[in-house]
């Protein structure tokens, strides 16, 4: 118990010592800087350099944290924004309606611009034209072909098929003909 108390007292003592030493170092350094500020010597800059640009290359180990802070912040903001856009929250959307004035104004603007727009490209020509719906239903509702006509067509097609199947090529001369080459 007593040793613990001694330890804590020792720690607090060390802490106070540390802060005192650091304060001294800082004050010494600060004083040196202050004294050197107005004295012209071999270390004095010929051109005035802004303090920020002078300091940035010097601290190598500590450079990782302070200058990157804005980058980290912007990266965090970006991640937050992306996450917010990727969240599906239908309840938060709420009803959306365009104001009547804005609606009619936009309709007017579109009408004017569409009227001035160039002619659309003609649709690609099609081999088989579509018959309008009314005409199509009328055509389909008509009675079919009479039996006599159907038999006539069937017989004509049969005769034509028979005639085509009997077509033969008969050769009477040689297939290879020598040219009259001297």
């Amino acid at each position, binding site marked *: 118990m007593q040793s613990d108390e001694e330890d804590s007292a020792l720690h607090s003592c060390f802490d106070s010592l540390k802060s005192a030493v650091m304060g001294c170092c800082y004050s010494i350094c600060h004083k040196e800087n202050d004294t050197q500020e107005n004295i012209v010597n071999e270390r004095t800059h010929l051109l005035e350099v802004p303090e920020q640009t002078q300091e940035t290359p010097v601290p190598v180990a500590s450079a990782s944290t302070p200058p990157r802070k804005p980058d980290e912040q912007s990266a965090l903001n970006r991640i937050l924004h992306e996450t917010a856009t990727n969240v*599906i929250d239908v309840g938060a959307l709420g009803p959306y309606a*365009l104001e009547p004035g804005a609606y009619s104004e936009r309709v007017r603007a*579109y009408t004017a611009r*569409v*009227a001035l727009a160039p002619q*659309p490209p003609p649709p690609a020509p099609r081999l088989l034209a579509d018959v309008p719906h009314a005409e199509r239903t009328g055509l389909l509702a008509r009675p079919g072909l009479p039996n006599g006509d159907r038999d006539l067509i069937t017989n004509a097609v049969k005769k034509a098929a028979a005639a085509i199947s009997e077509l033969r090529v008969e050769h009477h001369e040689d297939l290879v003909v020598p040219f009259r080459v001297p």
Partner: protein
Amino acid sequence: MVDDLRKYLNHLLEKVNGLHCILITDRDGVPLVRSVTERAPQLALRPNFISTFGMATDQASKLGLGRNKTIISMYSSYQVIQMNKLPLVITFIGSDNCNTGHILSLESQIEPFLKDLAAIVAETP
């Protein structure tokens, strides 16, 4: 241009049995060109109804399956097919027994006209 396009949409409307209307609107449901028959439900032609597709397609695109292109809604007596051609939205409304595949096939026939219309929407403040 608008008259020719409307005639063309009317022609497409006649081709598909049971199709009641074709609307080309902007994201907020403001119409650019429309071809409507008297059988089309008036409630579904309102900008409030059409503009919900803009939000729905945005949310549906977040489901991890890529960009949402078309939403088909089947109702008891109607079907509504909306296509994402942002900044444009194409809306087809037909009867419940209308051939959905036939309506979807009209996309390729309307596509050539959309470039000019999208430019108009983009230019309008």
